[in-house]
């Protein structure tokens, strides 16, 4: 830095504005400055998510109403599906379970899906502006979360109509949703990075997401799963998360510690691994898109 201090002599405003760009092998940039730069861009993150969300339904007649209509119609589709397959309804409590689990699942799957497109689809943004690229998958997660919020209202109405209890155990939903969002963020960073190297990923992803949906306890209760298929259920990160959510909201009980711990472990492992994977590769993105 001595040469720099010399060159910048007499211009104090330069002191904090020294940039050096050097080649790198795969590796992490200094994390302190990286996260400071990320924090400095938080308003950018919010503005990006907000405007993107608004632009998506700019041309439709019903506009922002689609943020409510989409999840409601999806809930109706799957409820009908279950009704036909089981040739008979499972009652109104099941409808509440289905809506709750489906909306929470969508919080994660939308983040992962749009996260996968975030870096490769952010071409211009990446080629024209220098900023911590982690903003891009984080934007996907934030958008997904903003889409999730109106569904909370939809679910609340269903909850009241079917007469489920309202008590303090509902508050467990807040940390559980936070864990699911964290998990979704980590997974989105993974898919965002992977898509840069393997462009076929977004072609596979919708099928993968659908299988994931069908193998998660959404269209059925976790208790319905026969013993020989249980191992599959236990490998699914959605099981502890949706399971705890179901305990807290539908059954009105404190979720078992085992499920909560498993959810926590999944969320933390995914966000740490996803962040490190993304950041270690991100300086290469601009030359690869």
């Amino acid at each position, binding site marked *: 830095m001595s040469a720099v201090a010399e060159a910048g002599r007499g211009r104090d405003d330069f002191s904090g504005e020294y940039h050096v760009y050097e080649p790198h092998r795969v590796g992490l940039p200094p994390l302190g400055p990286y996260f400071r730069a990320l924090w400095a861009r938080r308003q950018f993150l919010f*503005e990006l998510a907000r405007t993107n969300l608004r632009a998506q339904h700019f041309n439709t007649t019903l506009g922002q109403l689609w943020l409510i209509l989409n999840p409601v119609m999806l809930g109706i589709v799957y409820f009908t599906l279950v009704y036909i397959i089981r040739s008979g309804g499972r009652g109104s409590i099941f409808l509440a379970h289905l809506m709750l689990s489906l909306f929470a699942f969508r919080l994660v799957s939308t983040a992962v899906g749009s996260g996968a497109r975030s870096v490769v689809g952010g071409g211009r943004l990446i080629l024209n502006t220098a900023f911590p690229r982690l903003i891009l998958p984080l934007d996907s997660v934030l958008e997904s979360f903003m889409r999730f919020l109106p569904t909370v209202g939809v679910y609340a109405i269903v909850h009241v109509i079917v007469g489920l209890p309202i008590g303090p155990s509902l508050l467990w939903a807040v940390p559980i949703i936070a864990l699911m969002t964290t998990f979704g963020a980590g997974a989105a960073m993974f898919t965002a990075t992977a898509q840069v190297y393997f462009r076929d990923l977004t072609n596979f992803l919708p099928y993968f997401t659908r299988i994931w949906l069908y193998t998660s306890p959404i269209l059925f209760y976790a208790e319905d799963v026969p013993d020989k298929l249980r191992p599959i259920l236990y490998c699914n990160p959605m099981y502890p998360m949706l399971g705890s959510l179901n305990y807290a909201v539908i059954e009105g009980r404190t979720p078992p510690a085992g499920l909560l711990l498993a959810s926590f472990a999944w969320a933390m492992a995914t966000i740490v691994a996803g962040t490190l994977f993304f950041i270690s590769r991100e300086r290469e993105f601009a030359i690869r898109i």
Partner: protein
Amino acid sequence: MLERQAPETEPWTIRVQDLSVTYRTAIEKKPTLKKTLVRLGRRQRIIREIQAVRDVSFQVPHGHVLGVVGVNGAGKSTLLRAMAGILPPTEGKVEVLGRVSTLLALGVGFKNDLTGRENVVLGGLAAGLTRDEVAAKYEEITEFAELGDFMDMPMRTYSSGMYGRLAFSVAISMDPDILLIDEALSTGDARFKEKSFEKMRELCAEARTIVLVSHGLRSIRELCDEAIWMHEGRIAMHDQSGAVIDAYRDFLHLSESEAANEDV
């Protein structure tokens, strides 16, 4: 070919040392199913490397205006992106002192579905300004761009000239220490060109460091102290802007009065 080396003691704002930038793409010339299957069978990967910038070194002293000329694909835009910290060097080193504002070939660089206003706000925030700072500059930007009601229309409804006007207005309003400009002056109608040329002159006079990539040889000659001529990723010449332009013009077989002067 003259290689001008600034003395070590001279304070520089941008220092580029032995810079090389290589793009890697995985694109087949004619992608077919058969080729793909054969490739997967042999476990080969198609990677094509494009050496856009090769072993380039120069310094830009504080307050100087550096022009960059060269034919399409000579590596000018890549060089600019490397200085902006967008493309990582494959080899070598780039050092920059001060806040950088870029105006790169692709325009404001945001989303076409968003309005001009939203793009301006996003652009400012992405560059690291706060919301208040962006709001303060917004007036200045709209006033310079003269787009009127179009500021609240999605940018996909813009003509390319309007696009360029907005991009230029944003870049010059960011109050940068260093301004990196790529082909910006060639957009807009004659009146806007003249206006942006005047603005550039103003900025040059304010002792900011500017790197200007342009095919408009008049603007390079009039605005720049020195110039670099890039050819196939290397520096073919680095000298006073007049000398570089004469040599470049000879290379292109253009006479003084031809098209290059028109394009401001």
